[in-house]
C-alpha cells in the first residue's frame, strides 16, 4: 500500500512522469515555436542535453548573495510544483490525492513558484535581478485575481472544491462545460501570464534586464530552476485541461492518450500566442489583466452562481 503510494508520488503519475513530460513539452514548445518562425528548431534530445550540460557546470554564487537561500530556492520551486502535481488527474478523473479543497492547495502551490523566483532575484543582489524580482511581484498582482476567478468559476457549477470531483462532474455533464467557454478563453490568457511567456515575459525580458531574476544563476542551480519552470508548464497546462477540458472515456489508456491530446492542444495555443505577439510593458500587462480579464472572469462567477441555482 505504502509502496504503491510511493510509486504514485515519485514515479507515475508523479514526479518522474512530470519531469519526462516536461522535457517533451519543452521540446515541443521550442520546436513548434521554431516552425512558426520558419526555423528548423532543436532536435528531440535538446532539452535533456541542456539539462545535463548545466548539471555538469560548476556552481558560482555571487559574493553578496545569501548562499543558503541561493541554493535552497530552486529546490523549493521544484518541490512545490511536484507537490501540486499529485492533485491533478492524469489517466482518469481521479488524481493520486484528492480532498475537498485541493483546488485551493494547487493555487497556493502555484503562488509559491513566483515567490521563490522573486526571492531568488532579491537574494542575488544584482541590479537586473532586483528589477526582474519587482516585475515578477508586480505581474503577480496582475494575473492572480483573474486566474483564481477563472479557475474557481467552473468549481461553482460542479459545487465542489476538489479538482478530481470537478473533472468527474463535467465528465458526467459535458454540456455544462460549455457555460465556461468565456472563462476558458480568459483563463488561457491568464495562464500565459502566469507562466511569464510572451507577450507577458516582462519579468525575464532578455533584451532589457538580461534574464531577470535568473541572471546570477548558473550550473546545477539554474538547471533545477529551468526544470521547475518546465514542470510548472506541465502542471499549469494539466491543471487547466483538468478543469476546462474534462472529457473522459472511462478506459484508462484512452484517457491517458486523451490527456496528451488535451495538454498538447493547450500548449499549441500558448505557443501560438507566444509567436504572434510582442512583449507588453508591465503597466500594460496590469491594465490588460484588470480591464479585460478580471471583469470577464467576475461576470462568469456571477453567471455561474445563477446557473447553479437553476441546475
Amino acid at each position, binding site marked *: 500500500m505504502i509502496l504503491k503510494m510511493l510509486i504514485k508520488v515519485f514515479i507515475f503519475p508523479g514526479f518522474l512522469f512530470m519531469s519526462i513530460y516536461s522535457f517533451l513539452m519543452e521540446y515541443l514548445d521550442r520546436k513548434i515555436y521554431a516552425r512558426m*518562425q520558419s526555423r528548423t528548431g532543436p532536435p528531440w534530445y535538446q532539452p535533456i542535453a541542456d539539462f545535463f550540460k548545466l548539471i555538469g557546470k560548476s556552481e558560482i554564487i555571487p559574493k553578496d548573495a545569501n548562499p543558503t537561500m541561493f541554493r535552497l530556492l530552486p529546490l523549493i520551486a521544484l518541490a512545490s510544483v511536484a507537490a501540486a502535481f499529485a492533485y491533478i488527474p492524469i489517466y482518469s478523473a481521479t488524481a493520486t490525492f484528492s480532498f475537498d479543497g485541493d483546488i485551493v492547495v494547487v493555487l497556493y502551490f502555484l503562488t509559491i513558484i513566483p515567490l521563490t523566483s522573486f526571492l531568488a532575484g532579491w537574494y542575488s543582489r544584482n541590479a537586473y535581478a*532586483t528589477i526582474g524580482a519587482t516585475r515578477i511581484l508586480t505581474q503577480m498582482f496582475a494575473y492572480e485575481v483573474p486566474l483564481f476567478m477563472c479557475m474557481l468559476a467552473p468549481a461553482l457549477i460542479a459545487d465542489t472544491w476538489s479538482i478530481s470531483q470537478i473533472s468527474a462532474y463535467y465528465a458526467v455533464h459535458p454540456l455544462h462545460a460549455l457555460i465556461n467557454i468565456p472563462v476558458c478563453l480568459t483563463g488561457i490568457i491568464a495562464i500565459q501570464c502566469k507562466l511569464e511567456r510572451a507577450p507577458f515575459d516582462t519579468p525575464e525580458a532578455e*533584451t532589457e534586464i538580461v534574464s531577470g531574476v535568473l541572471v546570477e544563476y548558473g550550473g546545477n542551480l539554474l538547471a533545477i530552476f529551468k526544470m521547475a519552470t518546465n514542470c510548472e508548464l506541465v502542471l499549469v497546462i494539466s491543471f487547466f485541461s483538468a478543469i476546462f477540458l474534462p472529457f473522459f472515456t472511462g478506459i484508462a489508456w484512452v484517457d491517458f492518450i486523451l490527456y496528451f491530446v488535451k495538454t498538447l492542444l493547450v500548449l499549441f495555443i500558448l505557443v501560438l500566442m507566444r509567436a504572434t505577439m510582442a512583449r507588453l510593458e508591465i503597466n500594460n500587462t496590469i491594465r490588460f489583466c484588470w480591464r479585460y480579464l478580471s471583469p470577464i472572469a467576475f461576470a462568469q462567477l456571477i453567471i455561474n452562481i445563477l446557473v447553479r441555482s437553476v441546475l
Partner: protein
Amino acid sequence: MSNIDKNKVTIPIGPQHPSLDEPAAFSITLEGEKVVNAVIGVGYNHRGLEKACESRTYIQDLYIVERVCGICSHAHSTAFCISIEELAGIKVPMRAEYIRVIVAELERLHSHLLWLGTACHEIGYDTMFMYTWRDREKILDLLASYGGNRINYGVNKFGGVKRDFDETTSSDVIKTINKLDDNIKHYLEIALTETTLISRLMGIGVLSRKDALKFGAVGPVAKAAGIDYDIRVAEPYGAYKEIPVKLITDNHADVYGRTVVRIFEMQESIKIIKYAIKNMPAGEISARVPRRIPAGEVLTRVEAPRGENIHFVRSNGTDKPDRVRVKAPTESNWHGVQHMLKGGKLADVPITIAAIDPCYSCTDRAIVVNTGNDTKIMDWKQLRQYSIDWYKKEGIDIAALKL
C-alpha cells in the same frame, strides 16, 4: 553593481548586454521603471581607419573604406569613389551609375530588414525577427552571387564598377524583390494593425521636428519627424539624377514613425530597383583612372540606409590621400539619444537605442580608457610615452628591442 540613492538605481546597459549588437556603455538612472538620466559612453570600437587611409594608396583605401561599416559598406565605398572621381575629373559611364544604384538599393533593403528584425527582437517579437532575417538572407544571396561577398561586396571601383549586370542577375533580382514585395506588404499590415507591436512603439523615444533639427538628426530618424530631407532627392548623385525617388516622411516622430518610414522606404527601394533594371543603358561599366590623383579637396554626401553619409578627402597630388574623414550617419543621430531616453521607461531603452539603427564602430574616433575618476586627453607623443613607460614598468624596454 548598483548605486542605491534615494530610490534611484543606476543600472548599466553595456558594454556587454544582450540588446546591444556592439559594445557601448549606457548608464541608465532609474526611478522605479522611469528613466531619469542616461549617460552614453562610446569608444570601444575605435579602429583608426581614417589614419590608416593616409598611409595607403587610393586603391588600398577603397578596401578600407568599404569596411568602415558592415551593413552600409556600399554607401561608404560609393561616397569615396565619387570623391576620387571628382578630384580626378572622371566621367563615370551611366551603366555603372545604374549598377551602383541597384546595389545601393539592395543594400538599403537588407539594412532595413535587418533593422526591422533587431527592433522586433528588442521588444520581444522574435517571430518578426526571424521572418525579416529570412528575407534578408535572400538579398544577401543575390549580392553574394553578383559581388562575391554577402557584405562588403566590392562592387565599386574608381571610375565605375567591377562587374557587369547580366540578364540572369537582373531576372534573379526581379524575381527575389517581387517575392519580397509581398512579404513587406504583410509586415506593413502587421506594423499598422498588431496591437502589442503598436503599444510598444507608439509614443516611444519621441524626437520632435524641432529637436531633430536641433540635434542634427539624419535619415529615418529625421524623416519620421517630418523633415523631408534625403540626399537622393535634395542633391542627387549618380543615376539618382535620372531615377525618380519618392521621399518618405512621417509625422509620428517616434519609434513607430521610424518603423513605418523604413518599411515604406523598402517599398520605394523595390520600385527604384525595378526602374533601374528596366532603364539601364548599355555600354561601358568603367572608365580609366590615373594612379596619382590631382591635389584638391572634396566633400561628398551619399544617402546611406541609415541617413546622410559624408566623406571628405584631401589630396596632395601623390598616390596617397592627405586626409580622409568619414562621418557615418550614426554620428549625427547620437546626440538626440539622451533626449529620447529621458522620461521613458526602462522597458523602452533598448528599442529607443535601436531605433536610430546605431553603428558604433562606424562612429568611434577615439578610445576611452576608464581607469578611475580622472579624465585626461593625451596627444600622440604623450600616448607614445605612456605606452613606453607602461611597458618599462612591466619589465620590457621597447628601446632595447631590435625589430
